[in-house]
């Protein structure tokens, strides 16, 4: 699975946490970086920050849809979640979490994503 977040704290902490559950995780600092990587085709679950400089999480979701990469997505955001959540869920996201999220919250969301894959 992949974590795409412009925030270094998340990029450093979240993969470690997920790995502790035995998941293989690769972090990316931007949507463009993720799209350009080889990992794209191998990713079974994407944890994606909503607001990022450059391509936003929402745009990446659309782009993946256009490229027919049907990757389950768990959105995370530090901004107000209420406006974003319905939109991303409508477009097929598995979950949308508000930073800071709990260990339980992220694990359930990721599990759900992987389970659906």
């Amino acid at each position, binding site marked *: 699975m992949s974590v795409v977040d412009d925030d270094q*704290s998340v990029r450093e902490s979240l993969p470690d946490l997920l790995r*502790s559950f035995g998941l293989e995780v690769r972090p990316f600092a931007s949507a463009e970086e993720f799209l350009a990587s080889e990992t794209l085709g191998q990713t079974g679950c994407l944890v994606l920050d909503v607001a990022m400089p450059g391509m936003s999480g929402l745009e990446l979701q659309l782009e993946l849809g256009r490229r027919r990469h049907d990757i389950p997505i768990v959105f995370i955001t530090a901004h107000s979640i209420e406006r974003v959540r319905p939109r991303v869920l409508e477009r097929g996201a598995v979950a949308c979490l508000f930073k800071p999220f709990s260990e339980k919250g992220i694990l359930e969301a990721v599990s759900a994503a992987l389970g659906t894959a």
Partner: protein
Amino acid sequence: MEIDLGRLLDALPGLVWTARPDGAAEYIGRRWLEFTGMDHRDAVGLGWRRAIHPEDAPRLLSRWAEIIASGRAGEVEARLRRHDGVWRWFLFQASPLPEASGAVLRWCGVNTEIEDRVRAEAALRDEERRFEFIVEGLPAMVTLMTPQGELESGNQYMLDYFGRTLEELKARPVGFSFHPEDRPQVMSRWRRSVETGEPYDHEARLRRGDGVYRWFHTRGFPLRDAEGRIQVWYLLQEDIDQRRRAEAWLAGEKQLLEQVALGLPLSTVLDDLSDLVERLAPGCYCSILLVDEGGDRFKVGAGPSLPPRYNAILDGKAIDPRYGPCSLAVVEKVPVITDDLARDPRWEGSVWPGLMAEYGLASCWSMPILSGARDVLGIFAIYRHEPEGPTAEEQELIDRFTKIAGIAIGRARADAALKAGEAELRQAYRHLTEAQRLSQTGSFRWDLTADTHDWSDETYRIWEVDPGTAITTQMLLDAIHPDDLSATEAVVSRAAQGEDFEQVFRIVTAGGAMKHVHAVGHLTEPAAGRPVFFGAIQDVTERKTAEEALNRASAELAHVARVTALGALTASIAHEVNQPLAGIITNASTCLRMLAADPPNLDGARATAQRTIRDGNRASEVIQRLRALFARRAPAMEPMDLNAAAREVLALSSGDLQRRRVIVRVDFADDLPPIRGDRVQLQQVILNLILNAADAMATVEDRPRDLWISTARAEPDLVALSVRDVGAGIAPEAVGRLFDAFYTTKADGMGIGLSISRSIVQAHEGRIWAAPNDGPGMTFSFAVPSGLEPAEAAPGPPNSVPREA
């Protein structure tokens, strides 16, 4: 028997005598001699003649000679001198004493005194003469008529008037000389008088010898004999033509002046005037020409008897003194008389004489009609077929009616000017009304004492009162919105002292509509010592509604903006803090999992713990950055006038306060020293206190929302400003916490205003406090040091010399 003849004669009563046939006295009786005092010897023969009055002697002697010659009895009257020298009238009678042959033998005579009869006759003759003298001397006709009503005789005046002899007149039928129009009535009245003997009294026209009729007043009285039978009618006939004419002139003038006074059309008055003059002066044709406004052309005013074509030629004719007498009279401003057209050299070369001749006119008398200012208003002209000048009487008539024409024309001109002025005024009034209508501004005049109100149409419209309704001050007070009443009354009472007034207030019309009106006015020159306002009132409801909508919109916008800004800020803060928090929590979770692993991943746990610390620091930095962002800048201290600062705040917030029906009352100390402070920050404090006060009174409905703002020197070196409201007040236990951050007594308050205010005041080394009023509401005050040294700030005694700076 021989009787002495002498004795016999002397015995006869009377003065007797005899004379020889030749007339010489032969015997003279004793009584004759005694009367005259003459001797017989002196009297006989021709001696007696000395006793005859010298004036009578020639007549007597001639008569005596006739008698002697005739041989028949005769008599003569003459005066005899009495013995005492007094003359007495005697009748001398002589009879012949004939012989048988028939010749006169002797003359016998007797003298009878007739003094009394002669005197009576003389008196009668005198009376007759006097009567005749009077009758002939009377400036009137005296006519005697027979009891049957026929002419008997008349005085010379009568004969002269009719120019006929009495015989010629007697040959005429009775009443022949009266005017045919008057004759029937004259005859019927005269016949009645003759039948009944009643005096006759009537006025009628009599034809003079030259054919002219003149008015006479005839009065007739019957003279009766002892038996009461009418002997003769005396008629006194007075020429009253002058009086009748004067009366006719006066009546005409009166009628015309009445027409002028009634404002009848000028053409009517001038036509009537012409008709009248033509009636009073037969043979005259009137023409009245008006000088037009430019003063260079004629306009026909009247000419009822002149040929219409002649009038048409004159109408619009240019005034040219060489053309004819009317033009010349305008230019020269004097009468111009052409008494004989054919012989007047002035109009040679003009077409006018030919025109006159065409209509058979031979003379033209042109009188200028002058105004009071001696401007020529027009021409009054008389035309005649005969080549004549005006008689004195005609001249007087023309002069008088020229004046009347001047009055009529002057009046018509004044009326026209007045009408033009009125039209102008009406137009100005229409403009004013239209402007008032468009600007929704009405005007009014208000006599406070008499309680009389003079309103324009628009003012009535604004108050929605039927125009013309009598207005009373009470009606106005009743219509003013109760919340605005006291403030408006206060403004009016100040205005009554001479202040200009300006006030926006609400009225509720009879129809129930609420209107905002803006009234301005001032005291005008008092009428009869009473205050009278003149002012204007504008319906500003639309503007006010728009303003209020705008205010509401801007308040909402401000609220939205505040909320939005706050939301954005919150979001921003949340984002900035949540990011590191997410890292911290995730790291901590990871750290716990690493420590709980078997074997524990200590290196990993250490690394994640370090990242936790890093993220924690990062969150702390975020907060620090925020604090730095919002850190208050240092106040910019400068000398400032707290009164002026407060006035600015009031000016900025007056609209808001008025909308919230807050009545601001100001009491600024005059002697306030300047302070050192940050103007903008202190104004924020003042604004905050004012808005709080307004908020506190938002629900007050039972009393005016009075807000007092005052300044004063608190201590020698402190300047204080207080804001007092009449709101609900604050519970005593809450007062202590008012200035704490996030403490609020308001439903929608944030609890930061007073907290910030306190910070600002404290930054100025001042203090802020609140205290409940004796009555309703609270007073919030702050005090800051004055910019002066304490010694300078201390109020000095009056007249103290200011210290040199």
